[in-house]
């Protein structure tokens, strides 16, 4: 019998007034896998992730995370999840150590001082620990956000554009750390991104979204073969333009 999915989404719909931001999504994500959620602006990636996190209530449909129905049963599983997003920040006046201590206490992390030291070592933050978070560079702040998202050693990590606004070198460094954590911990990761190279490198499965719906869903290799393309970026452009061409043909 296959293990229960880490995330199960069934007929998920989110309507804002008359606009459907997410329109009937159905997918499930196996535990220990890294899945990419690809899509352009307004595709519904952030809305989908917010419903999986329990930050946003669906209009209809169902989201089950680690066996708990979201958002109603979120307190059963929030301790085992975490997230990182460029749309959320850490308190700027607190030092990195203070921020990690507060979040560590919120998540009930045992041996917190040791965990902070370990994360600081892994993410190259040791020399910065007592510096206010607001005085860090963009790359350093991303590493702090990553440290916060790993503070409770989560079984499920939701990442919304984790390397947005980072230079290629720092972005690559962050990806390597994420890869290492997931392999070591066998954690499940759902990664929303515009960055095709990032998705291609990290993810064993890709869900491509457009206008709140799933346009395609497969492994990167099979997507490349099916579309006869060399990169996911080309696949993404094919998917994005296919609908436009179909619409033009229909007209």
């Amino acid at each position: 019998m296959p293990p229960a999915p880490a995330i199960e989404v069934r007929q998920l719909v989110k309507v804002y007034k008359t606009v459907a931001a997410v329109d009937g999504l159905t997918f499930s994500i196996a535990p220990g896998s890294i899945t990419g959620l690809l899509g352009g602006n307004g595709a519904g990636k952030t809305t989908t992730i917010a419903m999986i996190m329990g930050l946003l209530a669906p209009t209809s449909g169902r989201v089950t995370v680690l066996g708990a129905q979201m958002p109603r049963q979120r307190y059963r599983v929030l301790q085992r999840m975490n997230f990182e997003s460029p749309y959320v920040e850490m308190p700027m006046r607190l030092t990195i150590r203070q921020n990690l201590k507060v979040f560590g206490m919120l998540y009930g992390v045992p041996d917190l001082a040791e965990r902070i030291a370990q994360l600081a070592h892994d993410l190259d933050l040791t020399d910065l620990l007592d510096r206010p978070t607001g005085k860090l560079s963009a790359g350093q702040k991303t590493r702090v956000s990553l440290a916060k998202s790993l503070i409770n050693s989560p079984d499920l990590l939701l990442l919304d554009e984790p390397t947005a606004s980072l230079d290629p070198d720092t972005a690559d460094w962050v990806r390597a750390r994420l890869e290492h954590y997931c392999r070591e911990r066998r954690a499940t990761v759902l990664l929303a991104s515009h960055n095709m190279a990032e998705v291609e490198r990290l993810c064993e499965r890709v869900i491509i979204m457009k206008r709140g719906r799933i346009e395609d869903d497969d492994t990167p290799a099979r997507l490349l073969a099916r579309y006869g393309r060399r990169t996911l970026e080309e696949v993404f452009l094919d998917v994005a333009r296919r609908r436009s061409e179909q619409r033009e043909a229909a007209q």
Partner: protein
Amino acid sequence: MTARTDGALAFSPRRVAAMMLRYWYLLRSSWPRLVELIYWPMVQMITWGFVQFYVMQNAGFFARAAGTFIGAVLLWDILFRGQLGFSISFLEEMWSRNIGNLMMSPLRPFEFISALMVMSVVRLLIGAVPVTLLALIFFGFNLYGLGLALVAFFFNLMLTSWAVGIFVSGLVLRNGLGAENFAWSIMFLFMPLTCVYYPVTTLPTWLQPVAWMLPPTYVFEGMRALLIEHTFHPGLMLDALAINAAFFAVGLAGFLWLLGSARRHGSLMQTGE
């Protein structure tokens, strides 16, 4: 209960302590925040202290009612600063775009509210204690001379300030920082109606029942009775407590409803204006 509510009512002192530590780190790191806590209460107290000096020299009745102005100023400050202390700690999360991190963490709404309540008392004490000592030095008014009555006044005023602070925080959660002005101004709606500086009988007859629906009215009437007639009326404090319990329940229910509404409308993801 925990199974039925899926853990939403679980309460962890550790998580409350985490939030208090977060606000304490913030206060400690910013001297302007500390100065602001003392600045306005002191300006108010000095202004009204001199007004009282002037009135005492010119009116026989007020000469007997020594301390009512400064007493009113100090008690009003407990009410106003209590609510502001609660709301500002909450607004700090909105300003720093940290609310998503908290809402995604295991922190329960009741734990968050408890931490904000405790921090409002801490902030109030940082500002109020030096000012009450200055009132004693400059104007000979000893607030602590009110004895046990002061405890009853303080507790009732804090309950009202928390009830209002909780409700306003819900409004800001639901409507974003565009609703921030409520946090700064809502308590001034209470000022004329709760009869801070004058007896309830000063109000038009039709407005007096409205005043008696507000718990601080009982506190300010009680303070005047104590300072002018040297009589403490426990009945007034019990009435205030009963109305405060209703205020607190409404504030809490409003907050939870607005939080649910924010979750439905996506406001927790967009915490800007």
